């Protein structure tokens, strides 16, 4: 049994995820699209907080809301007129998009219904993962520890920095 506050919280999160993600792809002004993306990402961060992953929620806000959306906004301002509506969709293209989305929805919903027992699992008790444990898991080499992906990721980020500089510099 969940408390009333928890249910209200859930309704807010679920509604804002659904509404804002649909608005992100249907609005015709691209800057608004980026703003709705920001709201969707905030709703996802809220969901992480509600499921007791505080560190993950903080990372989501810092990296996505603070980094990626700002990048999007800057690049939109650099490449297009923000007040300009995108041209109206051809109906063929819209039908194609709807078919792809509905097909995805149908396949995944069918898969979910086939796994009804797991899909109806209720929320088990869990202690919040502490920052201390997260740090140890990121720096260890044993089982369930992630030093190798961590280092691989640092090489990837370095490659990304160099690539970004090389691609975007003036010749």
């Amino acid at each position, binding site marked *: 049994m*969940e408390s009333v506050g*928890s249910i209200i919280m859930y309704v807010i*999160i*679920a509604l804002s*995820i*659904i509404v804002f*993600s649909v608005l*992100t*792809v249907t609005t015709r002004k*691209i800057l608004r699209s*980026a703003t709705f*993306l920001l709201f*969707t*990402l905030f709703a*996802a961060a809220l969901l992480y907080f509600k*499921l*007791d*992953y505080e*560190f*993950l929620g903080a990372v989501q806000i810092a*990296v*996505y809301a603070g980094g*990626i959306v700002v*990048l*999007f906004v800057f*690049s939109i301002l*650099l*490449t297009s007129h923000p007040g300009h509506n*995108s041209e109206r969709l051809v109906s063929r*293209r819209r039908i*194609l*998009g*709807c078919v*792809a*989305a509905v097909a*995805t*929805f149908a396949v995944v*919903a069918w898969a*979910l219904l086939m796994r009804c027992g*797991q*899909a109806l*699992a*209720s*929320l*088990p*008790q*869990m202690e919040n*993962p502490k920052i201390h*444990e*997260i740090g140890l*898991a990121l720096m260890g080499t044993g089982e*369930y520890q992630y030093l190798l*992906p961590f280092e691989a990721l640092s090489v*990837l*980020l370095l490659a*990304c920095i160099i*690539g*970004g500089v090389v*691609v*975007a510099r003036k010749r």
Partner: protein
Amino acid sequence: MEITLIYYLIPSLIMFCAGVYGFVTRKNMIAMLISLELMLNAVDINFVLFNRYLYPEQQEGMFFTLFAIAIAAAETALAIAIIINVFRAVKNINAADLTEMKH
């Protein structure tokens, strides 16, 4: 009322489908990238949900999501660098109009 796993899976599924729809219908490359970001985020949410509901004593899902967020950030930065470079070359970022590789 008890909030079970499926109550969270449905919003994330709708988010993913919105991403698919946007990726197919949008013409502007930045808008396509935004749709891609929606899909990535829906997958992240699923990782966390399955970890929390089915295996709460382990933390694999959380770490997968952490790495996925970092990779998504790197990928987005690089993609935007490429898009700005394309814009500088041809003054246009409609995916349908970019038919030449080199000028």
